[in-house]
C-alpha cells in the first residue's frame, strides 16, 4: 500500500494546557482536509502516541480553516511545571504527528 506522511498534506503546531497537550493540524487544502477527516481519526492518533503514555484523545473539527484539534489527556507526564521530560510543554508532539504515515490518496498523483 502506498503511504504518505501527514506532513505531505498538512502542517501542525502543538502546545500544553496543564497536563493536557493539544495538536492543531491544518490541511493544505480542502481535499487534504477530507482525507485527514477519514484517516487521521482520534483513535489513529491515540494508537500512534501510545508509547508516550497518553490518556484519551478527542478530535475536534474546524472545517472552516481545514483544521483539526487533537486534545490529549495525560500527555505530558505531569505538565510544564512538574514533568521531568525535556519537552515538558509538548512542543515536539506536532512534529512527531506529522511523521505518522497514512494511506496515500489514490486520486493524488503527487502523493506516493
Amino acid at each position, binding site marked *: 500500500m502506498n503511504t504518505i506522511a501527514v*506532513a505531505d498534506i498538512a*502542517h*501542525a*503546531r502543538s*502546545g*500544553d*494546557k*496543564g*497536563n*493536557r497537550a*493539544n495538536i*492543531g*493540524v*491544518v490541511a493544505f487544502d480542502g481535499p487534504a482536509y477530507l482525507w485527514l477527516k477519514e484517516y487521521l481519526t482520534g483513535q489513529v492518533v491515540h494508537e*500512534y*502516541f501510545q*508509547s*508516550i*503514555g497518553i490518556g484519551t484523545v478527542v478530535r*475536534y*473539527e*474546524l*472545517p*472552516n*480553516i*481545514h*483544521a*483539526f*484539534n487533537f*486534545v490529549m*489527556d495525560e500527555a505530558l507526564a*505531569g*505538565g*510544564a*511545571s*512538574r514533568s*521531568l*521530560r*525535556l*519537552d*515538558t*510543554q509538548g512542543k*515536539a*508532539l506536532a*512534529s*512527531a504527528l506529522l*511523521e505518522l504515515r497514512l494511506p496515500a490518496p489514490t486520486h493524488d498523483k503527487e502523493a506516493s
Partner: protein
Amino acid sequence: MSRSIRIGNGAGFWGDNLDAPVALARDGGLDYLTLEYLAELTLAILSHIRLKDPSAGYINDFPELLARLQPILADQPNLKIVTNAGGLNPTSCALRCSPFLSDSVIGVVTGDDVLSRIPDWLQQGVLLNHLETGEPLPHELADRFMSASVYLGGVPIARALSQGARVVITGRVADASLTLGPALHEFAWSRDDFDRLAGATVAGHVIECGAQATGGLWHHWDQLDDLAGIGYPIAEVLESGNSIITKSVGSGGTVEVGTIAEQLVYEIDDPTRYRTPDVDVDLTSLQLHQLGRDRVEITDCRGVAPGDSLKVACVYRDGFTASGLVAVVGRNAEAKARAAGQIVLDRVKRAGFDLADALVECLGAGDVVPGLLRPENPPREVVLRVTVRDSRKAAVERFCREIAPLVTAGPPGIAGYASGRPSPKPSFGYWPCLIPRTFITPRVEVRPASEWKL
C-alpha cells in the same frame, strides 16, 4: 470602512525577543503595544521569586523595556501599552515603571491574586476540584499553594484606559484580554455584543504568542526572508469586530492564511467553545481571507455569553528538581548513555537516597517524544539527560554530584561536563480550578506616574 485600531503584540512569553517590542513600537504605526508574559509556568517562577522578596514577583524585563521605549513614547504621544507584566505584583511593577513614564498615567489592574482567600473558601465548602481531572483539592496541598491567580478579562483593562491610563499593568488576565480591553475601550461595545467581543478575542488569541502568527514555527521556514528580523504581529481590529492580522513593512516572516490557521488551533480545547472571562468564542464559524501580502482578514466570529465561573491557576511547591547533561559518543552510544544514566541513579541510591522520581533520556535516540522518532541507524552521538525530583533538597544535591564522576568512571566516550555541576531548583505543581464569578471584583487604580511612588 469602519474605524479600526492597530494593536501590536511584542512579547509572547517571558524570555521572548528583547528587541521585538522596540521594533514593533517604532515601525508598526500602533495605537496599542501589548506585551504578554505569563505562561502557566511563569506563575510558578514568579511565586518563587516573590517568596524571597515580597516586593518582587513581576516581570522585571518590562521596566527595562520601558526605559528603551521612552524616546518612542515621546515621538508617538498616542501610543499606549497594555501588559500583564504585573505578574503576582502589579503594584510593585508600576512603582518600578514610574521613573520611565514621567508625563504619563499608569493604570493597574488587580484583584486576580486570590491566594489569601483560598483557606476561607475551603472552610466554606467551596469546591476547588482540579479542572482536568475533577479530583477534589487535598487540604495538605492547598497549604502548599504559593500563588492562586484568577484569570480576569478585558473589562478592567478598558476601564483603566477610559480613566486616562497610557500604560496598563495587570496581573493574570486571559491572554486575549490584552487585545479585547483596548477594543472595548475604543469602540464602547456593549458587554453583551458577543460577536464583536469574539472578534477582538480571536484577534487577541492570534497575536498573543508573538511571532507564532507571523512565520515562527512555519513549515516553510527555509523559504522565509530574515527570520532573525521576524516582525511581530499586528491586529487591526475594526469596529465591526472583524480584524486584519499583519506585521510591520520590511520585517521578516510571513502572514498567511496558514500561519493564522495554525495559531488559531494553538493551545485550545473545544474550538466551538474557546472560553474567556468575557465571551465564549466559536472558532468554527470564522473565515480567513488573504487580502494581500502579509494581510489576513478574520471575519464571521461568533460568540456567546461566558459561563458563571472563572478559572483560577494555582501553583504549589513540590520539592526540588535537577537535570544533568553529558554527551556520549562512539559505537553503542545509546547503550552507553542509558547505562551511564542508570549508574548515576544507582549511585544516589547507594548514598541512601531513594529518589521519588527520576528519568533517563537519550536525546538523539528518539527520547524527546519517547519511542516515536527513533533514528534510522544507530546514533554515534547522543546526549544523556538525567532528571530527578524529590522533596528532600539533600537528595537532589547528591544527585547533582553524581554526574561528574561519569567522566572517569563511566563507559568510554563521555564528554561535555565542562559546563559545570547542575544545582537543585524548586519544583512546582499546577492546580487549575474554577470559582464562581461573583467571588471576584477586579480593582482598577489609575494615577499619574509620579504618584506611583513608595
